[in-house]
C-alpha cells in the first residue's frame, strides 16, 4: 500500500518531478565527474610535476673537492624503481672535467663531461655553439688529466637546450665515461624522479635513507617544497568545488520541492481527512524523495563518470580512469541531498484538512 501510494505520487506529478529528477541528476553528474577527476587530477598533477626533473638525489657522503667523489654503481640495485605501481626513474651519472674537439683539431674546449645512462652523445646548446658542432658531427671527447692518453670519438645525435647547466656540458654513455676517467663501476650522482604526493615522496626518501646509510640521500628542496605548496592549493580548490556543487544541488532540489509542496496541499488534506497520521504522510513523501534520489544518483553517477573521462581528456590529454568507488558514494550523497532537499515538505505537516477543503490557505 505504502509503495503503491509512492508510485502513484511519482506518476501523478510527472512534470514537476522531472524537474527535480533533472536537478538531482545534474548535481550527481557534476559531483561524480569532479570526484573522479579530483582523484585523477591529483595523480596527473604529481606526474606533471616530474617535468621539473629529478626531485631526489643520492650522492657520496664525503665531499672532497677537485675530482669529485664517486660511489659504487652497485648501490643502484638498492633503489626501488616503483612506488605504488608508478614508475620511478633512476639515472646514475659520472661527472668529470674533460675536453671536446673536432677530430685532428688542435684546440680542444675544456668542458664538463657527463656519463649518463643514455646510449647517445648529446651536446648542450651553448657548448655546440662554442665549438661549432652540428648534429651528426664526429667529436673527440677526452679526459682532462690525460692529454695524450684516453680519447674517444662519438657521433653527436642531438643538441639540447634546457636553460640549465646541461647547456654547457656534453653527455656520453656512462660506460664510455667510466672508461675514459678510469673509474670503472663508479658514479658520482644518482638522480631519482619520484612521482607522488609530498607525503609519499618524503616516505620514499626516508625509506631510501635507511637502505643507504653510507650515502647522502636528500630531496631537492627547490622542487619538493614548491610542489607541495602548489599541490595543496590545487587539491584544496577541487575539494571546495565539490562541496559547492553539492550545496547547489540541494538548493535546486529544495526550490523544486517547495513547488511540489504547494501543489500537494489538497492530497495531504485528503489523506489527513481519511485518517492518515502526519508521520505516515511525511514518511510517504520522504520515501518519494529517496526514490527520486536513488534514480537520479544512478543516472547521474554514470553520466558523471563518462563526463570525467571526457573532461580528463580535455584538460590533461589523458582520459581519466573511472573509479568505481565514486559510484556508490555519489548515489548515497544524492539520496542524502534529495531527502535533505525535501525539507520544505515539512510545511505539509501543519496543514489543516478543513481549511484545504474550504479552498483557503
Amino acid at each position, binding site marked *: 500500500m505504502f509503495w503503491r501510494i509512492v508510485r502513484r505520487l511519482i506518476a501523478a506529478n510527472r512534470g514537476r518531478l522531472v524537474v527535480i529528477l533533472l536537478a538531482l541528476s545534474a548535481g550527481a553528474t557534476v559531483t561524480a565527474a569532479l570526484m573522479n577527476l579530483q582523484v585523477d587530477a591529483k595523480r596527473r598533477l604529481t606526474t606533471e610535476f616530474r617535468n621539473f626533473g629529478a626531485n631526489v638525489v643520492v650522492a657520496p657522503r664525503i665531499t672532497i673537492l677537485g675530482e669529485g667523489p664517486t660511489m659504487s654503481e652497485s648501490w643502484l640495485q638498492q633503489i626501488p624503481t616503483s612506488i605504488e605501481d608508478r614508475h620511478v626513474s633512476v639515472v646514475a651519472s659520472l661527472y668529470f672535467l674533460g675536453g671536446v674537439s673536432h677530430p685532428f683539431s688542435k684546440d680542444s674546449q675544456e668542458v*664538463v663531461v657527463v656519463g649518463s645512462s643514455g646510449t647517445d652523445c648529446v651536446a648542450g646548446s651553448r657548448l655546440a655553439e662554442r665549438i661549432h658542432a652540428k648534429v651528426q658531427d664526429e667529436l673527440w671527447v677526452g679526459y682532462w688529466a690525460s692529454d695524450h692518453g684516453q680519447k674517444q670519438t662519438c657521433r653527436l645525435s642531438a643538441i639540447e637546450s634546457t636553460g640549465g647547466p646541461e647547456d654547457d656540458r656534453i653527455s656520453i654513455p656512462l660506460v664510455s665515461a667510466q672508461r675514459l676517467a678510469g673509474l670503472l663501476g663508479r658514479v658520482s650522482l644518482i638522480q631519482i624522479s619520484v612521482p607522488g604526493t609530498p607525503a609519499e615522496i618524503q616516505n620514499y626518501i626516508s625509506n631510501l635513507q635507511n637502505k643507504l646509510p653510507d650515502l647522502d640521500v636528500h630531496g631537492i*628542496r627547490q622542487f619538493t617544497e614548491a610542489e607541495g605548496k602548489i599541490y595543496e592549493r590545487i587539491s584544496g580548490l577541487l575539494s571546495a568545488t565539490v562541496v559547492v556543487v553539492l550545496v547547489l544541488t540541494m538548493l535546486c532540489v529544495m526550490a523544486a520541492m517547495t513547488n511540489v509542496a504547494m501543489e500537494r496541499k489538497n492530497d495531504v488534506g485528503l489523506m489527513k481527512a481519511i485518517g492518515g497520521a502526519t508521520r505516515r504522510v511525511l514518511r510517504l513523501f520522504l520515501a518519494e524523495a529517496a526514490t527520486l534520489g536513488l534514480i537520479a544518483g544512478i543516472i547521474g553517477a554514470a553520466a558523471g563518470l563518462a563526463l570525467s573521462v571526457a573532461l580528463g581528456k580535455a584538460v590533461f590529454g589523458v582520459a581519466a580512469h573511472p573509479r568505481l568507488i565514486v559510484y556508490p558514494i555519489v548515489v548515497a550523497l544524492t539520496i542524502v541531498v534529495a531527502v535533505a532537499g525535501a525539507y520544505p515538505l515539512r510545511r505539509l505537516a501543519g496543514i489543516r484538512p478543513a481549511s484545504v477543503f474550504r479552498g483557503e490557505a
Partner: protein
Amino acid sequence: MFIRLVADSFGRRPRHKLLTGAALALGMAVATAALSVSLDVGDRLSREFRSLGANLIVSPTADSLPLEIGGVDYRPANAGAYLLEASIPKIKTVFWHNNIIAFAPTLDVLVHESTKSFQTSASADAKTTLIGTWSHHSVPLADGSAFATGIGQTNPWWRLDEGRWFSDTAAECIIGTKLQKRDGMKVGDELHVEGPNEKVSLKIVGVLTTGDSEDDAIVAPIQVAQQLVGRPGQYRQLYVSALTKPDDDFARRAPSQMSPDELERWSCSPYVSSIAYSIEGVLFADVRVVRRVADGEGRILTRVRTLLWLVTLAALLAAALAVGASSAASVIERRAEIGLMKALGAGSGTVGTLLAAEQLLLAIAGGAVGYAFGILLARIVGEKIFGLAPQPSLLVLAVIIGLAAAVTLAGSAIPLRRASRYEPAPILRGE
C-alpha cells in the same frame, strides 16, 4: 498603477518574496564565489609557482663555458666575462617591469676557509665555494621609490637553520649546514677566507640549508666576493624571477622572423621569452630561460586553469538551474491571482509584463545581495587556500546581475506562457 501593483505584491506576501529572493541570492552567491576565485586563481597560482625559483638567468654574452660540477665552478677566476652590478636596476625599466618580482646577482669564488689564522689554512686542496650575493637589497627605481629584493626572494627554499641573514654592507657571512657540520663552526665565529686576490675575515651570522650544493658553501655579501676575486662592482650571473603567461605556439617563434604587428603583440604579452628578450635589450647580456621551470609551470597552469573554468561553468549551470526552478515555483503559486486579474479584464500581455517586472526586481535585489555574500565566500575560500582574498571585481557584479535576470526570466517564462493561456473561470472556482 503598474508600479503600485508590483509594490503591492511585494508588500502583501513579504515572506514568499523573501524565500524566493533568498534562494536566488544563495545561488548567485555561489556563482559569484566560483567566478571570483577562478578569475583570480591564475595570478595566485603563477605567484605560487615563483617558489620554484628563478625562471630567467642573465649571464655575460662573451662568457667562457662554465665548468661547474656539484655547485663548484672550476674555471680559473680570471677566465670568463663579468657584468656590471651598477646596471642591474635597468632591469626594472623594461616594459614588463611589474612582472619582475625578484632578482639577485651572484659571483662565485673558490676560497680557502678556516676559523683559525690564515697561515694554518694553507692545505691546498680544501677549497670551498663562496657565493657573493644580495641578502636584502634595495634597488632605487626611476620613479624615486625603492624595490626590495634578494636571494631569499629568488630562491625561497633557502632557509636559515639558525641566526640571521648577513647585512649587505657588513663583513658577515652565512655558511651551509653541511659545511658547518664538517668543520664544526658556530654562529658568532670569525671565519678567515682567502681568495685568489685577497684575504678577509667574516663573522658567521647564520646557518643555511638549501638541500642542494649551497649546503657546502659560504654565502656572503657580493662586495666581499668582488674583493676576493679583485673585480669590484662586477658579477657573473643574475637570477630573475618573473611572473609569466604560459607559452603557446606563438610565443615560441623567433622575434626576428615576425612582422612588426606580430612583434608588437608578442612583446605586449608577458611570455617568458618576450621578457627575456626585453631584458637582453637593456642589460646587453645573454638571458636564458630556465626551460625546465618555465615549461613545467606553463603546462600545469594551463591545465589547472582549464579545469577550474570547466568547474566554474558547471557551478554556474547548477546555480542557474536552482534559481530557474525557484522562480518557476513562485509563478505557479500565483495562479489564483492571475485568474482574478484576467477576470477583471487584464490582457495576457499586461499580466506577463507585471510578473516579469516583479521577477526582474527580485533578480536585481537577490543578485546584489548574492554578490555581497559571494564576495564574502570567495574571501573565505581564497584566504583558506591561498592565504589571500581575491579582489572584488565589478565585472563579476555585472555578470552576476545579468545572469540572475536572465535565469529568473527564463525560469518564469514557461509557467508564464502557461499562465497566459489560463481560463479565469476554472481557476477562480479552485479547479
